[in-house]
């Protein structure tokens, strides 16, 4: 079991275990369609965990099974060491922030937030105190009397958050809670959510299809595709070392170069590209495969004049600029490498800052990057 530094966040709660939520071989079928396919997952106590993936990959279904709104076809779900697979939602120490908020339209903000405490039969005076406190935490003091129809989307989102958090659940489930907000408010709420999560120290399981959102907020991310996750890790390792084509493509832009491994040398594997040039990648990443795709992020590649020496440790390819798009902060080049492969390169507009100084279309250039910046994914199957 992984031991996690918790910076004393959960000091007033007894820690049963470091794992808050555990899914064991969970399957969910709707008729013949498999929505969740043998998922094993361990979410640690106090972490901000994201389920990231494209539409229809099974994120919501996974979350709904943890919340108790859906029963798994097979498998086991544990909360803090207790098997909850067949417990109804009201017997689980978990609360949910729904995608559409699902605020009770007939109740005031106060009563919405107080709903969970009323079910526990707390005294009115205590409820009033805690609701006020919670509305302050989400920065909505004075909104007690308003009905859900009388507040904005961002405010509704915070009421939904307050309504769930006030119950002090072991785990908070959030299903694309920022999906309905505009970009600016979204960014603002991301920061706020992260702040609140750190303040209360509750485990968050966060569903999103926005990779940037997942990257900026999460401690760890599971990248889901077709009912299972392809890779699980912290944002940096997912971005820098994607292990599958899907993960490489879903988190940012990447160049994938088909290659054959021809030998190893001092911790690096030599890969011959389709155009007969050879590049090196960390040997550990090849996982014994012979035919692979070498991946490199566009911002890791440097452009230089042909033959210009840059040290000799780098991987090097030659090509011709085919397209240049000035984006302001950077410029995006499409370079056609020898052999016809097209490579995307981002260059910060520092050295060459004005349009005239940019690489011109048709110029021959060398592409260089450090072997350590490469990653390796399985080779494309024929037909892909």
């Amino acid at each position: 079991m992984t031991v996690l530094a918790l910076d004393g966040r959960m000091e007033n709660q007894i820690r049963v275990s470091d794992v808050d939520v555990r899914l064991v071989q969970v399957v969910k079928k709707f008729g013949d369609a498999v929505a969740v396919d043998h998922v094993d997952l361990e979410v640690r106590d106090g972490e901000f965990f994201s389920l990231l993936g494209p539409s229809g990959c099974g994120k919501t279904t996974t979350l709904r099974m943890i919340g108790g709104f859906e029963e798994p076809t097979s498998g086991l779900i544990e909360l803090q060491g207790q098997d909850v697979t067949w417990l109804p939602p009201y017997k689980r120490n978990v609360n949910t922030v729904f995608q559409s908020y699902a605020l009770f339209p007939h109740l005031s903000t106060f009563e919405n937030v107080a709903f969970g405490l009323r079910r526990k039969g707390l005294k009115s005076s205590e409820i009033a105190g805690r609701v006020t406190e919670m509305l302050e935490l989400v920065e909505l003091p004075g909104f007690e009397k308003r009905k859900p129809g009388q507040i904005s989307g961002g405010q509704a989102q915070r009421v939904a958050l307050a309504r769930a958090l006030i119950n002090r659940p072991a785990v908070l489930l959030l299903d694309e809670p920022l999906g309905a907000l505009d970009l600016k408010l979204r960014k603002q709420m991301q920061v706020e959510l992260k702040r609140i999560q750190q303040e209360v120290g509750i485990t968050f399981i966060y569903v999103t299809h926005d990779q940037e959102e997942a990257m900026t907020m999460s401690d760890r991310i599971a990248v889901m595709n077709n009912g299972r996750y392809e890779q699980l890790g912290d944002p940096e390792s997912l971005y820098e070392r994607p292990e599958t084509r899907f993960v490489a493509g879903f988190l940012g832009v990447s160049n994938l170069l088909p290659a054959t491994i021809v030998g190893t040398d001092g911790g690096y594997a030599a890969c011959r590209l389709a155009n007969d040039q050879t590049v090196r990648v960390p040997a550990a990443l090849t996982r014994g495969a012979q035919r692979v795709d070498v991946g490199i992020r566009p911002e890791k590649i440097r452009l230089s004049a042909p033959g210009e020496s840059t040290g000799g440790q780098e991987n090097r390819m030659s090509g011709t600029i085919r397209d240049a798009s000035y984006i302001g902060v950077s410029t995006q080049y499409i370079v056609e490498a020898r052999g016809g492969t097209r490579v995307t390169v981002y260059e910060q507009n520092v050295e060459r800052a004005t349009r005239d100084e940019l690489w011109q279309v048709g110029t021959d250039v060398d592409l260089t990057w450090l072997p350590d910046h490469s990653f390796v994914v399985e080779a494309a199957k024929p037909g892909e």
Partner: protein
Amino acid sequence: MASAATSTSRGRPEGSLGDRIGRRVGHLALPVFTSLAIFYLLIPIIVMIVFSFNKPSGKFNYTWNEFSIDGWLHPLDWPGLPESLLASLGVALLATVIATALGTLIGLALTRYAFRGRGLLNGVIFLPMATPELVLGASLLTLFVATALPPLRGNVPTLYPTGFSTILIAHVMFNISYVVVTVKARLAGFDRRLEEAAMDLGANEWVTFWKVTFPLILPGVVAAALLAFALSIDDFIITSFVSGTQNTFPIWVYSIIRNALPVQINVIGSIIFLVAVGYVSLTTIRSAHAQR
């Protein structure tokens, strides 16, 4: 005609005189038709209320004689009227309560669950609305009488002689259809996630129903109950088949109409109307308040 032609040829935006008149008429047509429709709908009610202040010269209150508030001072003062009115109110109230409760549950079941016979039930629910009342009344009477001959057990006929209980059974039956249809319409837009949210926050099924589901469908249930009450209190055709010797207000009115048309009928009619209008405006104002 000449001026109309020239203005057309100059292409003035107003168009020809004919066009302009047409448009003017078009603008006026809607308000005029609206007023006519309202007037048409209100005439019988106006006549009823006006004649409730009449002092008829004979037994028949259909020629204006002189203004009087006698009818309003003695609204029940006619042999047989209080008993029949009481029966009508009793039947209407009971039938409304029973039909609303059952109909709401049926509506919930039909929208929520997939079960055997659901399609059939969905269709059968419409039958009482689509079947002519004459047919329903006649067949109900046949049913009630048939269950009496021969008695199924001992000498006590099950549902015969006809009376209060058979009227109630008949009213509940036709009211249920209307309640189910009204409640289903309200449930169609219901967001099931609200119930999931309630359960997520610790409410079990029972608490969820009373704290979330019921308050949200309440307007539909109230509308259904009002409709049921209105249908029940003035039903004549079905009631006349199954009432036996039990009078209800409409049956009583019909039975005395050959001998007399007392002003009390107008007074009771006006009261029922005013109570209904009062209640509807009250709920409208209250819900408008709640929205704000």
